[in-house]
């Protein structure tokens, strides 16, 4: 493009440009402290309406008082002065979205932070979505019955998650909460799922690592990252999850299934507490404001599965909560446990025992549960659950002595193998059909005479061998989601054959 051409273009644009001068509502900054501005004037302003400051920063009106408005500033506030003119925009806080947002990293107000330029209009143009929206109503919803394959054996078998479900991941620091979430995203390749990863108050280095991992696994093609880092203002951490779910809603409105991860909501609650205290709202338990329950319930209620009549699509949410020293009865954990449809409970003790993912199978539940499992998985998982429950009960006994009857011994050995099978490395998701084969071999007793140290090796060998030799079985799982007698016979034979070659 030559310079003349650019100048011509500019001239044309300028000629076409017409200003519409409107009456604007303004106010003046009275006070400014820690990211909060008290603003006079601004009559008729709406709650959570956007305002603009002279240096281009935006703010959100949160506290509407008799003769002042409490505004949280989204961004840096070091250039805002007392007496600055604040303009009301008449718009509720919103973010720009288009199909081109996939593969991008944005901040809490929808501005790209990955250095790849502005988000351009997609084939549906550039839309704006308000970040606060009322969750879909009862009539528009559908019950959850489609599985989300996380690729993590212990979750897919024992704590199954369905599309549209809200499953909490809870545990102490360093127990692998984010690892589960990242694994789940990595496993969504080719599963017809869009993923949104919301990072709240996380270290930028950690986010960078996650992004690099997703990029490496080819997961960024269907993933959007929304980030409010630890160095950013609390106001951004407060709105980040709502921004994330708005992006998710954009894709759900196209009838797509979306998986959203909030990492983590404890930091979100802390950010909101900070804002609330600065706005001088009265503190309650643990100094959180009275509406901290509503803060999370209105967010998580936006996860849903919509019926076809209302456009279809679903949002599955994986909120993450970090507990302090395993205390799940603290304020925020209990709140979020009661909002969600189940929890995956991770424990430090298990983690250091080498059981990774460190899921405590006893305390973890999925309230939607087996309706979101394929039939074959339901069949093998039922027996597995029983095996594990009996194992936990007997494990305590077994420490007292060795003279146990045959039956008990057998159950103990089975349990040990079940625990071993459920161990899994990070970034190594397992396909559903492979999970079914492994768990079938375990629950039908094919692994009972394999040494525990050799279980992992046996599992790896078996999946490879069976995929080559049990074609009928695999086909049935892929098409009918269940095996029949013919498939089962074949699989049994294949497992027996493999065992003969395995030493």
């Amino acid at each position, binding site marked *: 493009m030559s310079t003349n051409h650019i100048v011509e273009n500019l001239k044309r644009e300028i000629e076409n440009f017409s200003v519409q*001068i409107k009456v604007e509502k303004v106010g003046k900054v009275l006070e400014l402290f820690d990211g909060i501005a008290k603003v006079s004037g601004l009559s008729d302003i709406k709650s959570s309406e956007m305002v603009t400051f002279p240096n281009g920063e935006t703010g959100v009106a949160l506290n509407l008082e008799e003769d002042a408005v409490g505004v949280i500033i989204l961004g840096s506030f070091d250039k805002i002065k007392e007496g600055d*003119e604040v303009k009301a925009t008449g718009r509720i806080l919103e973010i720009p979205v288009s199909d081109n947002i996939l593969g991008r990293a944005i901040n809490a107000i929808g501005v790209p932070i990955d250095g790849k330029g502005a988000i351009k209009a997609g084939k549906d143009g550039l839309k704006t979505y308000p970040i606060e929206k009322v969750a879909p109503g009862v009539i528009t919803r559908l019950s959850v019955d489609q599985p989300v394959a996380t690729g993590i054996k212990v979750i897919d078998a024992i704590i199954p998650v369905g599309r549209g479900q809200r499953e909490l991941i809870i545990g102490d620091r360093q127990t692998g909460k984010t690892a589960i979430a990242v694994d789940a995203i990595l496993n969504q390749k080719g599963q017809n799922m869009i993923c949104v990863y919301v990072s709240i108050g996380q270290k930028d280095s950690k986010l960078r690592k996650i992004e690099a991992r997703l990029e490496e696994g080819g997961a960024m093609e269907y993933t959007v990252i929304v980030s409010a880092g630890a160095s950013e203002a609390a106001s951004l951490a407060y709105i980040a999850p709502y921004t994330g779910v708005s992006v998710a809603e954009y894709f759900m409105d196209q009838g797509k299934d979306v998986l959203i991860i909030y990492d983590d909501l404890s930091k979100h609650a802390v950010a909101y507490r900070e804002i609330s205290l600065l706005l001088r709202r009265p503190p309650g338990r643990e100094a959180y404001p009275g509406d901290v329950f509503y803060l999370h319930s209105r967010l998580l209620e936006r996860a849903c599965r919509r019926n076809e009549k209302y456009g279809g699509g679903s949002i599955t949410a994986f909120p993450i909560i970090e507990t302090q020293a395993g205390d799940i009865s603290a304020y925020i954990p209990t709140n979020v446990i009661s909002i969600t449809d189940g929890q995956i409970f991770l424990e430090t003790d298990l983690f250091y025992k080498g059981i990774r993912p460190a899921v405590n199978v006893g305390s973890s539940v999925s309230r939607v549960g087996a309706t979101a499992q394929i039939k074959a998985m339901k069949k093998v998982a039922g027996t597995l659950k029983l095996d594990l429950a009996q194992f936990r009960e007997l494990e305590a006994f077994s420490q007292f002595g060795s003279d146990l009857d045959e039956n008990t011994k057998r159950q103990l050995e089975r349990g040990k193998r079940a625990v071993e099978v459920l161990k899994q490395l990070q970034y190594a998701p397992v396909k559903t059909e492979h999970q079914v084969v492994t768990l079938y071999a375990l629950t039908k007793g094919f692994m009972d005479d394999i040494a525990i140290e050799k279980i992992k090796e046996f599992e790896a060998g078996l999946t490879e061998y069976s995929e080559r030799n049990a074609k009928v079985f695999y086909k049935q799982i892929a098409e009918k989601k269940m095996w029949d007698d013919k498939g089962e016979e074949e699989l049994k034979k294949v497992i027996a054959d493999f065992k003969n070659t395995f030493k």
Partner: protein
Amino acid sequence: MTAISNNNIARAIYLAFKDKSHADQPVFLKNVVNFLARKRLLSKAPDILERLNKIINEDKGVVTAKVWSPEKLSEATNKEIAQILARRYSGKEIDLEESPDEKLIGGYKIEVNDEVIDLTIKNRIAKLQEYLIKN
């Protein structure tokens, strides 16, 4: 906790004052000052006075407008502004307060209470900049 705001106090003073006869007014004013002193509100007196002024203006239909422009506006423009404002705010009396501002380049900017009508060149240029970046 519902504290009585300065606005409430100013309104109360105005409403009470309106009903008093000429003879009672000086006594009433003295009472007001005593009241403020007793309640330790004298430090807030300037704010209360300002609000009182606003309430009186509102009641009497006086609209105070601030006008900024780079150069002094002509009589005709002033009159026109006053007319428009009288219509818009249904005021009986328009009180124009002019102040110069070189940075506006051209045009003028009117402010009434918390509403601004910005007809300056500076605003137009800012809008043009926004438009060119977006498209």
